[in-house]
């Protein structure tokens, strides 16, 4: 084990003096959720009325300090795993990188526009899989010609049609795994500077997980950065060479995957 650590150390020292191109810089990020109407029933008519009469601002705005001072820098070509227990702030962190949550303090700098793939990131459920592919690609900024050209490869990659003609059915009729596969296939059709995957691959079957791993590697080679949140430590091990461990909104450890996941599994905080 010590040998392995020495090896990785050697590797890193070899490239130590090459400057790398950063893609995501998190600088002392704090994220605070403001929950309106916690406790007192917001929906009840009487409480809403009494609030209006007494001119009190919303009852008890509760604050949830979900991320507390996380800093890290991710570089081109890296696949970074994010691990931590439930409610530790992983999804929050990804949403903030994607620009969907404001930072209360600190800042996140990114290159280009990060794309976030979440567990239940529905696209257009009442439209067919086919429409979703076309519209998703157009929304990402592809031209109609590019979409026509890539359409078949996206459908093939998703494997939606392996069990019959499902691509022409509305997406609401898909199983959760099928939906996740199609969404990933659409998002992965474009080269992203930063791709954020929040447990979106967890429902995929064995074959699809292999394919998506291969695609993530390709994306990294195309000089992108991939963030992967997963509770499947093996998936993290196989996909990411770097892992960040978050607990209670704080960064516990940031290092090589082997090291971080080993300690995470043992519950050994450094």
């Amino acid at each position, binding site marked *: 084990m010590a040998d392995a650590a020495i090896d990785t150390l050697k590797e890193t020292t070899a490239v130590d003096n090459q400057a790398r191109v*950063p893609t995501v810089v998190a600088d002392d990020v704090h994220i605070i959720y403001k929950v309106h109407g916690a406790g007192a029933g917001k929906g009840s008519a009487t409480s809403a009325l009494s609030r209006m009469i007494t001119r009190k601002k919303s009852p008890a705005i509760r604050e949830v300090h979900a991320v507390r001072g996380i800093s890290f*820098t*991710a570089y081109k070509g890296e696949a970074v795993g994010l691990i931590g227990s439930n409610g530790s702030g992983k999804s929050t962190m990804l949403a903030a990188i994607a*620009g969907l949550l*404001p930072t209360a303090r600190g*800042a996140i*700098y990114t290159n280009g526009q990060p794309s976030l793939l979440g567990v239940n990131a529905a696209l257009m459920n009442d439209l067919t899989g086919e429409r979703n592919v076309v519209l998703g690609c157009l*929304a990402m900024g592809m031209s109609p010609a590019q979409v026509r050209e890539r359409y078949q490869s996206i459908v093939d990659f998703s494997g939606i049609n392996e069990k019959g003609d499902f691509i022409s059915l509305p997406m609401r009729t898909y199983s959760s795994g099928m939906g996740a596969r199609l969404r990933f296939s659409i998002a992965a059709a474009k080269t992203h500077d930063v791709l954020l995957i929040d447990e979106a691959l967890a429902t995929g079957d064995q074959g699809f997980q292999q394919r998506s791993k291969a695609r993530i590697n390709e994306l990294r080679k195309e000089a992108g950065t991939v963030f992967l949140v997963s509770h499947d430590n093996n998936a993290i091990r196989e996909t990411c060479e770097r892992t960040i461990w978050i607990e209670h909104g704080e960064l516990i450890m940031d*290092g090589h995957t082997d090291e971080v996941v080993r300690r995470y599994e043992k519950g050994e905080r450094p």
Partner: protein
Amino acid sequence: MSTLSDPVNLSAPRGADAGLTPKQLADKYGLSVSGKRPSLPKYIRQLWARRAFISSFATARLVAQYTTAKLGQLWQVLTPLLNCAVFYLVFGVIMKSRDGVPVYIAWLCVGVFVFQFSQSAIQAGTRSISDNLGLIRALHFPRAALPIAFTVIQLQQLLISMVVLVAIVLANDIKPAMTWLLIVPALVLQSLFNTGLAMVMARVGAKTSDISQLMPFLLRTWMYVSGVMYSVSGYIKSWPTIWQTVYSWNPATVYMDLMRYAFMPDSFDKAKYPGGYDAAGHQLPTALNLPHHIWIMAGTWAIVAFVIGFVFFWKSEEEYGRG
């Protein structure tokens, strides 16, 4: 524990960049604050690049709208027709509004269809962000594409209804005239106006969901004061001139009048419809009145609403999808 496990800092910049603070590093490589709203010209360029998305999205939505209904696409034509039928019964027959208006059925249908266009564009705009959070969170595109696409859907819907409208107009012995060409510019201006309103309401609706409960009442009030089903000109005649002028600027009335003039210019002919009462005391139809400068009014509303709506929507671009 091995001493080597003190982790190598994978975050620290290396080589020439060593020692830079995160902020300096971000600046050096031109990284920008995540989720920052693009400048207005850049935003317009991005939006223009998504024009294929807007039109495909609108078409797909329009087709999907009625897929669960048995009669399917037929509802696109049936809904406005049924609306017209109800209004005709209540306002035309029972309340006798039809007496004072030349060719009441055509007059009513044009009004209903034109008002419906604005009304549904505003309603769809209000929900365009809040109903599509999944799409907004998963993919990156200028959010204004959504309220615009929903207005395009309503425009497509109106164009389909137009076929019915033409049939109704022809059935009422109105001959096609050169003024029919005015339908196109009138629709363009109204579409711009509607898009502007849809964008304003999209931003408002994204923040406060209460507004979508309130909208039907506001829109219904607007409909009743705009003279969709009965002519308001008789009621406001006694008002002070200043209030008549203000009233004439009501955009709904402006766009309805334009379209009514385009479809049936004869109804505006005072020689043909002098008004008054016949020997038996029945009210005779009075010629409609087209305000001077109506095109200027229509154009002003279109440009003001569109520009204000667009800027207002853009101002909050980074916040859609949050919360």
